[in-house]
Structure formats: structure tokens, C-alpha cells
């Protein structure tokens, strides 16, 4: 069997991102096991969700015995951004059967969207080739995510506490956070949410976390509308 050329070039484009998935996938597996999930549940999380940030956030909430509703809410808030990618990918009008469309949605993550979007902007492909390229970018990332989650699940129970691997999870969040700081209002959103999350951490049911996030988003939006108004005033 010969793979379609766009599929192969999609794979080649996403392969350099695989090393970044190694620690993140392993830590996702470890944190799921330490949160009290069975190996089956931990692997099912990666198969069903494939959303590293929300999987790890959910695990850390389960460690703190947050109610189920709050854990679900964390998944929802962290994964809402996929709607942006969904809209962004829809613009490129890929040729997809209903089943392939569902499959494309399932593997829509930050990396597959970013790689495909950049490629479509710079290459002239047919609708069918665009779909092939997209699935090409998804395959290595999907496979490595499943594999390294499994490695984490197996090693989850043998890692000594003294290594402080929960801090490695924090560092993964640092590496996710920094690229989102694209403008000053966005930095403000992060600073407000981060600064509030510390004193509010003692609120029950992790309410402080959601309150801090909400205040951060509100502060960012307000600051953004102010800067836009100021710009309009200086350039009428």
C-alpha cells in the first residue's frame, strides 16, 4: 500500500513535535495513576479525550478530592478553545465524509490545527489533499500521545515521591502558558488570573480556580477594549 503524498508530508511536518510530547504524555499517564485512576481509565482518557492540559488538570483536581462536577467544568473550560480551531479548520473546506469529519474533529488539537493552517496558507492543495495532509499531521501525534501515556501509566507507581514530579507537571503548564501570551491584554489576563488563584486556592471545591480564571478573562477583555478605543482615538 502506498500512502498519499500529502499524508506523508503531513507526517513529516509533525514528527519534530513528537519529542515535546514525550514528557507531557508520560506525565499525563503518571498523574492519572496518582489521581486514583485504574490503568484502563487512564489510557481511556488519552484515547477518548486526547487533550493533555485538561487531562492533567482533571487529575490534579481528583487528587484534591474536588467534586465530579468541578472536574468536568475544568475539562470544559480548558477545551473550549477547540471551537476556535474547529472554526479555523472549517474555513479551509477539507473533503471529508461524515465519518472522517468526526475523526478529524477527534484529533483536532493545537498542533494539528497550527501545522495544517500554516501549510494550507502556503501551498495550493485540492480539498482531498488538504484532508490527507491534516490526517498526516495527526497520526504521529496521536500515536505518540497514546504510547507515552501508556509509558507514564506503567511507570506511575514506581516513581519515588522525592523526585517531586508534580512540579514537572507545573513546568508543562508553563510551556503551554507562555505561547498564549500574544498581546499585552493577554499577559494581563494571565497575571490577574495567576495572582488571584494563589489567595483563592483555599476556597472550597476549587471555586477559587474558576473565579480567578473568570476575573483574568474579564480583565483581559476590558484592557483589550480600552487599548482599541485609545487606538481609534489616536488614529481617527
Amino acid at each position, binding site marked *: 500500500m502506498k500512502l498519499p503524498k500529502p499524508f506523508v508530508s503531513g507526517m513529516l511536518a509533525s514528527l519534530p513535535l513528537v519529542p*515535546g510530547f514525550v514528557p507531557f504524555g508520560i506525565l499525563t499517564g503518571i498523574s492519572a495513576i496518582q489521581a486514583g485512576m485504574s490503568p484502563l481509565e487512564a489510557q481511556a482518557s488519552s484515547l477518548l*479525550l486526547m487533550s493533555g492540559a485538561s487531562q492533567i488538570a482533571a487529575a490534579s483536581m481528583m487528587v484534591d478530592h474536588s467534586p465530579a462536577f468541578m472536574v468536568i467544568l475544568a475539562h470544559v473550560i480548558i477545551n473550549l478553545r477547540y471551537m476556535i480551531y474547529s472554526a479555523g479548520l472549517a474555513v479551509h473546506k477539507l473533503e471529508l465524509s461524515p465519518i472522517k469529519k468526526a475523526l478529524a*474533529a477527534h484529533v483536532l488539537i493545537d498542533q494539528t490545527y497550527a501545522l495544517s493552517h500554516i501549510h494550507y496558507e502556503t501551498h495550493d492543495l485540492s480539498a482531498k489533499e488538504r484532508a490527507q495532509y491534516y490526517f498526516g499531521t495527526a497520526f504521529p501525534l496521536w500515536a505518540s500521545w497514546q504510547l507515552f501515556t501508556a509509558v507514564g501509566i506503567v511507570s506511575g507507581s514506581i516513581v519515588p515521591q522525592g523526585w517531586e514530579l508534580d512540579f514537572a507537571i507545573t513546568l508543562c503548564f*508553563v*510551556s503551554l502558558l507562555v505561547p498564549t501570551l500574544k498581546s499585552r491584554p493577554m499577559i494581563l489576563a494571565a497575571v490577574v488570573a495567576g495572582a488571584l488563584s494563589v489567595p483563592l486556592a483555599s476556597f472550597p471545591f476549587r471555586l477559587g480556580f474558576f473565579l480567578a480564571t473568570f476575573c*483574568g478573562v474579564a480583565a483581559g477583555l476590558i484592557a483589550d477594549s480600552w487599548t482599541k478605543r485609545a487606538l481609534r482615538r489616536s488614529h481617527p
Partner: protein
Amino acid sequence: MSQSTIWIILLVATVATFLFRYSFLWLAGYRQMPERLEHVLRFIPPAVLSAMTFPAILTPAVETADWHAPRLLAGILALIVMWKTRKSLQTLIWGMASLWLLRWLAV
């Protein structure tokens, strides 16, 4: 947390996450994303990721009123490394190495 609760969380989160990803692919051609909605959604990742990160870095320092707390210093170093290099692997290595080094020095 009971096993059935874990499965309920998993299934509800899976359905919700799938619907977010499927939403506009399904609507394709009929409706575009409202600009206002996209604008609001773009501010969620910096806020939510920051609210996940800061307590782990700052809480030990705040609780002990010790601004030399290893997690604070290692966290700041990691932020700088990520800001400068944009490489998650280097961020992880520098952050963990500095944490372990600071712990070892304190003993």
C-alpha cells in the same frame, strides 16, 4: 473517587470536548464563528493556564514567607527559559534540574 464517578466524568468530558471540536466543522458552509465569541475564547487559555500554574509555584513561598523557596526560583527560571527559547523540553529540564539542585543545596 469511585470508579463509576471517574467513568461519568470521562464520558461527559469526552462528549463535551468532541462537540467543541466538531462544532464548526459540522456547521461548515452554513455559519461562521461570531467574532465576539472568538475574541472571548482567545482570552481563556492564558487565564486558565496561569491559574493552573501560579499556585504550584507561589503557594510554598507564600505559606512559609520564604522568597527563596525552591519552587518559586525554579518556576521563575522555567518561565524565563520558555519565554526565551519556546522549547518545552528545555523548560522542563532546566526547571527540574534547578529544583533538585536547590533542594540538594538546602540539605
